[in-house]
Every structure is written in structure tokens, then in C-alpha cells.
């Protein structure tokens, strides 16, 4: 799906805006990286796209998904779009799964929200999608509680939950930051493969330009709530224009 963000600003109360006049275009099937340090407004941007900011946040500008304006939609309309057309993978696999629910049921619920009256089909779908994210023992995993799984396993479950309805746009908010380096590489490969297989567009948020470069070809760099530079990642690496981008590239080289 294509996504068009224009002049997006987010402010909380009377404080300085967390996001200011952010704009970018995402073509169907394209992957865009969003790079920036914590507090740069990248997570707020992603939550604003999903319509998940608290009510007291003032969001202005325009976000359109395949031509449909999302800002100003009510919770009911947004709930229909979320999961079905666009979904999100969160940073903390430790906290992004409900501790009181078996993971299979959590994925099944996500499926059934958009496919009512489908008990048996949902169960089948859960195993299929768990298979797809690399679990060889899908049935056992689906009966586990989140605390019985490792960080990498949980992140794969979250990925399964995000793709179970085959959305056209997936937002990844620092999906590998909380993981060990080896697991990180594995999950990145999986994300890459999943996106290639489904043809979904993706917004990939990270503070690490090297990580972004493994999934995306194009990226925007954010700082202080604004986009300071954008372009192909190879270009950002070789000829960073903004001093901040230069610092990020150097930091990545040291890591």
C-alpha cells in the first residue's frame, strides 16, 4: 500500500511539538527507514500514523493510506484498518505480549477481529503464520505463555501477529533494539524475507543506520521532531549532508 504523510505535527499540551512538519511518501511495496535518536519523534510519528496517540495529543497535517485520509477518523473506523491494512511491531518483546494470555490465542484474536466467525480457521491460521516466522513446533509455541519464550521467539510471535491479516503496511518500531546481536541478525533476515514474500510496504524505525540499511534502501533522518535529511541509504552513507547524519554514520562504523 502507498502511504503519504504531509506536514504532520504532533504536540502534547503546551510543550514544544514532539513532531513538526514531517512529510514523506512511501510507494506500494517500498520500505522506508526512519533514523533518529530517542526523543527525535520517530516513535511518536509511527503512533500518529496508527492513530494510537492518547487523546490529548494534538495531531495536525495529513496521513493518507492508499488515498484514504486517516487523521480525523474515529476509533471504530481506525480499528477496522489497524491489523487489516496496517499493523505494527513494537520494540520491547518482553512487554508487547499480554502476560495473561497464551500467544496462540493472542494471534488468533488478532485474526478473528477481522475474520469473525472463524474459530477453526483461526487456529489453522495461527499455525501457518507461526510456521512462516520460522517456528518448527508451531503447536507447542501457540500453547505457550509469553514468559515461557525467549526474547527472539517473542519478537517472532509479534511479527506473526502483525502479518496474520496480511496488511499492506507494517510499521516496525525498533524491532531489534532489545535483542542480542545474533538474534538481531536472525530477526532482521526474517523481517526482510517476510516483507519480500508479502509485498507489504514498510516503515522501519531505528536509531541504528546500519540496521536500517539491511532492510531498506531509502531512509529519512529525524532530529528534534523534524526530518533533517532523506535519500537513498547508500547516499546517506557516502555523502551525508547534515552533520547529524554524518555523526550517525560514524557511530555505525564504530559499532
Amino acid at each position, binding site marked *: 500500500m502507498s502511504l503519504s504523510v504531509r506536514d504532520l505535527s504532533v504536540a502534547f499540551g503546551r510543550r514544544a511539538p514532539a513532531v513538526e512538519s514531517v512529510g514523506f511518501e512511501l510507494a506500494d511495496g517500498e520500505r522506508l527507514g526512519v533514523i533518529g535518536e530517542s526523543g527525535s519523534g520517530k516513535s511518536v510519528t509511527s*503512533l500518529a500514523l496508527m492513530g494510537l496517540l492518547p487523546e490529548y495529543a494534538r495531531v495536525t497535517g495529513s496521513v493518507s493510506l492508499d488515498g484514504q485520509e486517516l487523521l480525523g477518523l474515529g476509533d471504530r473506523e481506525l480499528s477496522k484498518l489497524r491489523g487489516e491494512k496496517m499493523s505494527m511491531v513494537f520494540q520491547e518483546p518482553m512487554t*508487547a505480549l499480554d502476560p495473561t494470555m497464551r500467544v496462540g490465542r493472542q494471534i488468533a484474536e488478532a485474526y478473528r477481529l477481522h475474520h469473525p466467525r472463524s474459530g477453526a480457521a483461526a487456529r489453522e491460521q495461527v499455525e501457518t503464520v507461526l510456521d512462516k516466522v520460522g517456528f518448527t513446533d508451531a503447536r507447542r509455541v501457540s500453547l505457550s505463555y509469553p514468559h515461557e519464550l525467549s526474547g527472539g521467539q517473542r519478537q517472532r510471535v509479534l511479527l506473526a501477529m502483525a502479518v496474520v491479516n496480511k496488511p499492506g503496511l507494517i510499521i516496525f518500531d525498533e524491532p531489534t533494539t532489545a535483542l542480542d546481536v545474533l538474534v538481531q541478525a536472525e530477526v532482521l533476515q526474517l523481517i526482510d524475507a517476510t516483507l519480500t514474500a508479502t509485498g507489504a510496504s514498510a516503515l522501519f524505525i531505528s536509531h541504528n543506520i546500519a540496521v536500517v540499511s539491511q532492510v531498506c534502501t531509502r531512509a529519512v533522518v529525524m532530529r528534534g521532531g523534524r526530518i533533517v535529511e532523506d535519500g537513498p541509504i547508500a547516499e546517506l552513507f557516502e555523502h551525508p549532508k547534515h552533520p547529524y547524519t554524518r555523526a550517525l554514520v560514524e557511530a555505525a562504523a564504530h559499532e
Partner: protein
Amino acid sequence: MRRFQLWAGTALVGLVVLAALLSLVWTPYDPVQVVPADRLLGPSLAHPLGTDGFGIDILSRLLVGARSALLVGVVSVGLAAVVGVPLGVLAGMRGGWVSELVMRISDIVFAFPALLLAILLAAVYGGSTATAMVAIGISTIPAFARTSRAGTLEVMAEDYVLAARASGTSAPTTAIRHVLPNIVQFIGVQASVGFATAVLAEAALSYLGLGTPRAVPTWGGMLRDSQDTLFTAPLQALWPGLAIACAVLGFNLLGDGLRDALDPRLREAK
């Protein structure tokens, strides 16, 4: 120490429940039949706890009194939870003016003395177990609303709520499926503390004659009856007093024990 609280609480509460259950099938004597010849007897084999000013066996009345204490506890706490928990969850999830409104109203109810409310209700509808339960229930609503709101705020900060919303779960469904199961431990603790308060309040209302009618045995009513002969038969006041203390202590210990047993941070520290 933690385990001790839980076990002692369970034992004391269990004792009250047993007494109530036992009274349904058996009491040593008729708990309401006046026997003028047996007035104010001391403890003996025939009457282990003695008799009261009407010649009624105190043990029998005590057992039956457990019934009304538990009934009032269950109904008033149930009422408070059914109203308070949804309000608290709503306030916690919506925030803003909804939260302000719910919390300010609950402050007002909280500041209004339960006793005054009971007198008011009794004046309008007549004193009965039902008015006592409603009065106690209403004045316990704020406690449940506050606890649920605090728990909800904590849960709402967790990513799994965002993740559920991101997969298209509507706000009401999120409340039922993800928020409630994760705050049920706070509600349980609040319920056991509320139980203790309810038992005490019911005793106070019966003592004042605003609750259960005089003929029905209640612990508070027994205290009131013992007053007239307090100096000739002081033991008569001791038994219902002990029963109330036992139930209140039991529910409080159970509440504390539950809180400690269910708090994951404390559990990990073990």
C-alpha cells in the same frame, strides 16, 4: 511472614464461612426463641458461651450472625465492584475530562460518611439488611474506582495494550480482554479489604438499629443487646466483639497476604 499472613487470614475467614454454613443446618439451640427462665446464664456445658438477656444461646446467635455478616460483605462488595471497577477502568483508559469527572465524583462519595448515608436510606426506606448493604456498597465504590483506575493506568503504559490496539482491537474489547485480566489481582486485594470494612460497618449499623431488624441475629445487634446488662454479664459483649474482630482481622490478613503473594516484584525477590 508473608505466608503466615495468607494462611492466618485464610484460617480466620474459613472459620467465619464454616460458622455460617454450619448455622444453615444446625445450631445448638433456636437462635430466636426467647426462654425467660434461662436469662443471662454464664458459660456452661449446656451453653458453652452462656445465654443473653432473652435467654437465647449465644453460640447459636453467633453462628447465625456469621451468615448476615458474610451476606452483607458479599453483596456490598459485589455492588461496589460492579459499579466501581468499570468506572475506574473507563477513567484510566480515557483519561482527560472523563477521568476528572469520575475521580471527583468518587472523591465526593468518599468524603460522605457511610453512616450518614445509611441513616438517610433508613429514614427513607426503613432500616433493613438491604439498605445497610446498599449504603455500605455505595460508600465502597470509590475505593474500587480508584484501585481500578490506578491499575488501568499501569496496564495502559504496557506495550501489549498498544499492540492489541495496533491489531485492530477496539477500546471496549481491549478493556475486557487485556486490561481486566491484568488488574484482577488489585481488585481481589481491594475486595478482601472491602469485606472487612463491610463486616465492621454492618455491625455498627445493626448496633445503631439501622440495619438488620432486631429479631434477626447479627453480631452488631448482639453487641447492642448486651449493652443493657453490660455490668451484670460482661462476657455477653465479648463474644460478638471477638467474632467481629476475628472476621475483620481475617479479611485484612487475607488481603495483605494476597497482595504480597500476587505482586510479581515481591515474588521475584523471594
